[in-house]
């Protein structure tokens, strides 16, 4: 079995076999729905809109491609939920009913700030680098630092 075919179920075991059969959208929703909704709410803090995005995530044909995703289903859902939420946020920003947070020029460029700009506010690494006057590789390193600094259970 490939190392990557390990599925984390929070049981604490180092390796858990990936499910043999493909998961249906409802099964994925039951398992990762709350996590996806939390991610979407971090990006779009409006419950009604966030629920709409959540439905889009779990009705998306892209969700079925997670069955052949090289990483765990959770990683695939995180990626998909974020991309759908950012897409919805961008649409709102073009309509003008939603304003992006101000540029954090005065703030210190911490990994938390960089992660916030990229993950929650939907900026690409290049845009974050430009805003903070740092290189793209520094932005990517900050992502690594952010997850590294996250306290392990």
């Amino acid at each position: 079995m490939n190392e990557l075919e390990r599925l984390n179920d929070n049981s604490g075991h180092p390796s858990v076999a990936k499910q043999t059969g493909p998961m249906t959208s409802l099964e994925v929703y039951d398992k990762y729905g709350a996590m996806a909704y939390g991610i979407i709410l971090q990006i779009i803090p409006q419950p009604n809109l966030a629920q709409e995005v959540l439905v889009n995530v779990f009705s998306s044909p892209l969700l079925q491609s997670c069955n052949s995703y090289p990483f765990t289903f959770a990683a695939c859902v995180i990626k998909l939920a974020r991309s759908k939420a950012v897409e919805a946020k961008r649409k709102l920003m073009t309509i003008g009913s939603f304003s992006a947070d101000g540029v954090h020029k005065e703030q210190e460029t911490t990994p938390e700030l960089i992660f916030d700009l990229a993950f929650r506010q939907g900026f690409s690494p290049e845009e974050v680098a430009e805003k903070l006057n740092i290189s793209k590789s520094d932005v990517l390193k900050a992502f690594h630092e952010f997850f590294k600094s996250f306290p392990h259970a």
Partner: protein
Amino acid sequence: MNTQDFIESGVLESYLLGFATEEEQHEINQQILTSSEFSEYVVEFERNAQRYFLQNAVPPPPATREIIQLRASKTDIEKAGKHTYYDIPRTEQKKEEYLNVEVNDTYIKVHKWWRPAFIAVFVLSKVFLIAGLYYYFKSASQEKEIEKLRTEISLPRR
């Protein structure tokens, strides 16, 4: 670039967030195949990332699940619609005997025997019409004749 440098470059984290380019994705796949250290890091990273996002998990309202269920069943019906009827096993054909379909044309299809039957009815109706008119006028003229003869018989008696 050695494995440790690659890990610290943050490319994997960037991939999870959906920022990685095709080249970077290819590089990640290569590292997974060649380096067991990197593979172990991937497993550990995925676990940490999931734990981080689960901390901020919010249970969605129950209605959301129903909407997703409805959309999933709708998609299944649409997928089934792509197959021809004869592709479906006979047991399933029986279940699908009655379908709600919206017909949008004004034509109907009938059996081929309806054509001669219709022609026969048309011809017979014409024959009966002509016969009816013929006997009507004939009886009318006969009545006139009888009336005439009656008047002829009654006149000499006066």
